[in-house]
């Protein structure tokens, strides 16, 4: 699940909790003469403990989020204005978590439906927070976010923290309730942080980032027509997960050149723009093929990738003459071309950086045991020189560094506005009337 899915689920649960009042009644306690009391003081105490464990999970998500949106200082110094709103919130969250006596909820607590809807909403929030931690360990690690994405994550964390503090105050009468340490300071830090980030600095494209399910091979019988080409190209992308040796890298580059060229010829009648882009891609791969003729390197296993590249070419060549690909097939293939190119660039850069690929160059050297006056020119393999290698320069200049990000989902702004409205106590009905 992506950051957007997890954080939206978290916000929806918290917005629903913020709309709930008469907390004792919602836990089966007294509060209304028409509703009977169904839980004892001790039972409500235990429910309070469980809610605090869920809350701890959400606070931990906040801490991970604000850390990913860093850098911040280590928090060892005094709280000063120079720390800034984000650094202050980072510090306050750390202090709150450090002083909390609640542990994290168990797996059973996260996965078992709860009898009271309010507790179940907390379970939903804690479940989203637990899943969301995977996002911060993967694609949203510290240093991987753009400035606008960092601002968006920071704003989300600030809103969620404010919601937690509001609920903490509201739950004060639950038996045995342990309030947050220095809740007022935490609330002020979150509020200042949220106010310091204006809406026009946000980038909801961050919602599409986070943990992604690894792509799997398309098994089974080979598909017919263009489907077979797309299948083989997809499998090539999956196979490129393993680092290929130099010879198989050359085979893949050669296959991609031929595939782009032949696919461009097929697409030309109906999609001239895509055809031009693919012809340019064929030229790029031709340059890469030429630049890699002297490439060496035995480490890796690119046999399966080279086979998939060859299958894609064969599938395309086997199509009946005159068969024009559909718009959807062209889009899929174009998408795969981009991702394969990004991966090939990563492979070439990795091979050069770790000295797994070598270029064979002619270097004259003295042969001590040669009787002849003419010293023959011997061959030597030398590691790729990143700044001088033709292969490196073509890869860096002509292959994309990253694939374009998808547009943010339509729900990205909805869940954020709902939480903001819940924080400012604006009921949904009133909103509807106001909009009229």
């Amino acid at each position: 699940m992506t950051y957007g899915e997890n954080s939206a689920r978290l916000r929806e649960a918290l917005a629903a909790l913020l709309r709930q009042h008469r907390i004792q009644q919602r836990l089966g306690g007294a509060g209304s003469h028409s509703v009977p009391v169904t839980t004892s003081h001790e039972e409500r105490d235990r429910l309070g403990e469980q809610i605090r464990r869920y809350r701890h999970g959400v606070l931990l998500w906040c801490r991970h989020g604000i850390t990913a949106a860093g850098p911040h200082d280590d928090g060892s110094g005094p709280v000063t204005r120079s720390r800034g709103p984000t650094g202050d919130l980072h510090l306050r969250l750390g202090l709150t978590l450090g002083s909390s006596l609640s542990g994290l909820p168990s797996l059973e607590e996260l996965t078992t439906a709860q009898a009271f809807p309010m507790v179940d909403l907390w379970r939903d929030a804690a479940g989203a927070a637990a899943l969301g931690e995977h996002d911060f360990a993967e694609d949203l690690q510290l240093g991987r976010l753009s400035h606008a994405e960092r601002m968006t994550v920071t704003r989300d964390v600030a809103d969620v923290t404010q919601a937690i503090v509001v609920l903490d105050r509201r739950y004060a009468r639950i038996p045995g309730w342990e309030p947050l340490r220095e809740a007022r300071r935490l609330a002020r830090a979150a509020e200042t942080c949220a106010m310091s980030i204006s809406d026009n600095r946000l980038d909801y494209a961050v919602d599409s980032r986070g943990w992604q399910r690894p792509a799997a091979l398309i098994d089974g019988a080979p598909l017919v027509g263009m489907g077979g080409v797309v299948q083989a190209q997809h499998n090539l992308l999956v196979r490129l997960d393993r680092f290929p040796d130099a010879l198989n890298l050359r085979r893949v580059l050669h296959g991609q050149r031929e595939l782009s060229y032949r696919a461009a010829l097929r697409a030309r009648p109906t999609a001239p723009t895509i055809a031009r882009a693919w012809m340019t891609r064929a030229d790029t791969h031709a340059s890469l093929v030429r630049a890699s003729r002297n490439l060496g390197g035995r480490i890796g296993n690119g046999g399966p990738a080279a086979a998939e590249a060859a299958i894609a070419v064969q599938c395309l060549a086997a199509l009946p003459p005159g068969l024009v690909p559909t718009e959807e097939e062209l889009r899929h293939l174009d998408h795969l071309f981009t991702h394969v190119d990004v991966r090939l660039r990563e492979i070439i850069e990795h091979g050069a950086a770790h000295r797994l690929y070598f270029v064979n160059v002619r270097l004259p050297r003295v042969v001590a045991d040669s009787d002849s006056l003419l010293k023959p020119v011997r061959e030597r393999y030398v590691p790729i020189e990143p700044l001088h290698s033709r292969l490196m320069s073509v890869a860096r200049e002509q292959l994309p560094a990253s694939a374009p990000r998808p547009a943010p989902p339509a729900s990205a702004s909805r869940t954020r506005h709902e939480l903001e409205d819940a924080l400012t106590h604006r009921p949904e009905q009133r909103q509807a009337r106001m909009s009229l």
Partner: protein
Amino acid sequence: MPFADTSTLTAARSYIAALADGAHTIDGSVEYERALLHLDALYGGDVPALAEIAADGPQDIYDLAEDSLANLVGHGIDALQLELLLSLLEDARAADQP
């Protein structure tokens, strides 16, 4: 790899690469590159660097490529592999018709 093998293989690779670079059509260039990859695969990818060759006409380069391939017999490839390589070279020339 012995020096005699290296110099013979360098010549064969360089002529085929020159044919790929000077091809009239993309189809021809693709097929010459395929022949070069096939030759390199016979040596497991452990191949010497390309050498610069004197600029001759395409037919001369093609003849020199055939001769240098024939010289490789006994230098790491056998007669069957040679015939397969020559067949690939011929296919490439057929595809390289403007």
